[in-house]
């Protein structure tokens, strides 16, 4: 069984167009209180660009030193973005633990 999974650029354009619509649907109407976590969370997701680095790194023989070094740099940069983003979002959301939600103050 072939484990690799890639798509053609044309498939990619389809994915792109559909996920664009999906993206706006998923994200609209988010309360302001969550804007910062949402932003740091989505920032973390953009760290997924590191997958490109992984592909390059794993397909480069060890002899090609510079190529390997560049791919490694990309992996490190992406990994910091990805992991750090998720960690800090988690830390932030942990502060939002809804305490005593029952005593919502009466609106004036």
């Amino acid at each position, binding site marked *: 069984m072939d484990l690799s999974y890639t798509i053609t650029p044309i498939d990619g354009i389809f994915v792109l167009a559909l996920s664009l619509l999906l993206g706006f649907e998923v994200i609209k109407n988010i309360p302001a209180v969550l804007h910062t976590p949402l932003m740091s969370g989505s920032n973390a997701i953009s760290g997924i660009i590191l997958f490109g680095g992984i*592909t390059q790194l794993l397909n480069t023989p060890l002899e090609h030193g510079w190529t390997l070094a560049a791919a490694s740099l990309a992996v490190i940069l992406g990994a910091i973005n990805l992991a750090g983003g998720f960690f800090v979002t988690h830390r932030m959301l942990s502060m939002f633990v809804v305490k005593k939600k029952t005593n919502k103050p009466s609106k004036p």
Partner: protein
Amino acid sequence: MVYAYLIATIGLVQGLKFMGDPARAKMGNMLAAASVLLALVALVIATGWSHIANVFLLLALLAVGTFIGNIWSNRVAMTEMPQLVSIFNALGGACAVVLGLNAVYGVGTPVDTKLLGSVLILANLFGGVAFTGSLVAFLKLDGRKLPRPAPVQKILARTSLALLLIATVYYLVMPVDIGFYPTLLLAISIVALLYGVFLTLPIGGADMPVLISLLNALTGVATMMAGLLFHDPIMIIGGILVGATGVLLTLQMCVAMNRSLGGVLAGKFAGSGSAKPEGEQDIRSITAVETASMLAFSKQVAVVPGYGMAVAQAQRECFALQEMLKQNDVDLHFIIHPVAGRMPGHMNVLLAEANIPYASVLEMSEVNNTMEHYDTVLVIGANDVVNPAAENDPDSIIYGMPIIRAYKAKQVIVMKRSMAKGYSGAVNTLFDRQNCKVLFGDAKSSLEEIINELKRI
């Protein structure tokens, strides 16, 4: 691998969806992280076994990256959250540029179609602008001294933008030799890096939320483009989701300030000092002691916090004030303007860190029509967002911007360090109102004084 990718993609979208719901946001974040991890494992398993040493190298690199990310995210203070997001964003952008150049110069990815070629160009273009732009944004947020934008900066920004457009269009419509492509890509990357600096330099202060959202969107688009290059669907979807988030937040922030994106990018009223000098305003000042008794005799009190509150590190005093007033049966709400702070939603995070219950933090739109029910409104370190000129003075530079109608409350107390104008430079006509008094001094120490006074009452 196909199924792992499918599950991971669904998890990612669902995770982001959950992140828009306060009760499930934390779970959403974990779900998104788990999905990315799953996809990563699948990717490594599917591609990894031809060069076994590389797998170990990869694991080591991932471990180091995760470690650094963890340390940074644990160390940062919540006031510095915009800086951290900027620096992470810069790393993502840099990653895109390195990948793109390495694809052509190192790996030798065949760029044999116009589609692939333009995808790669755009990945490096957006990545480059996001990288240096976020770096400059980081330095600005961190309060480093940067060269003031000279008039020449505007010309440089426009020239580099024009160069980028011309080069991209040139590649699209003209037959370009395969051998020349790497040079073209390198040139575009370099100009994009420069443009990021020129673009960001004039933007500052209250426009920061717009800028940060926009740069975030750029990295998302770069990721998406890289996804097309690497034929990787999860990169495309992830990138698009980030891009959509960034664009939506950018537009929301612009609407909240009644400014066009173009106007923000041109740094229009940043330090332009176009406000007409007007006659002396008749200002009534008030002492902390008087403020305390005024608060004690109120039933409904609202605090309108601005970035000045964060600068003074007065969040915990706000919490103490709320607790103190609660003992006197006074209800204290916090009313937050959409662009308060230095990134979208920043103020909510700062208040949450100070343990202020989520339920007492209200959005502007929730209460703006019922502001007259508040006995006292305390404005801490905010200025433009409570300026009534935005509603009733068509000549004012901020006319049309949605504001918190603090002036409708029975009493307004503005805590200020000096009579300096807000970010826009507009004269705040709130001070002319009969029901407005100014409490001069540092927000933190003023609040401490008020709390001590309340203890004695």
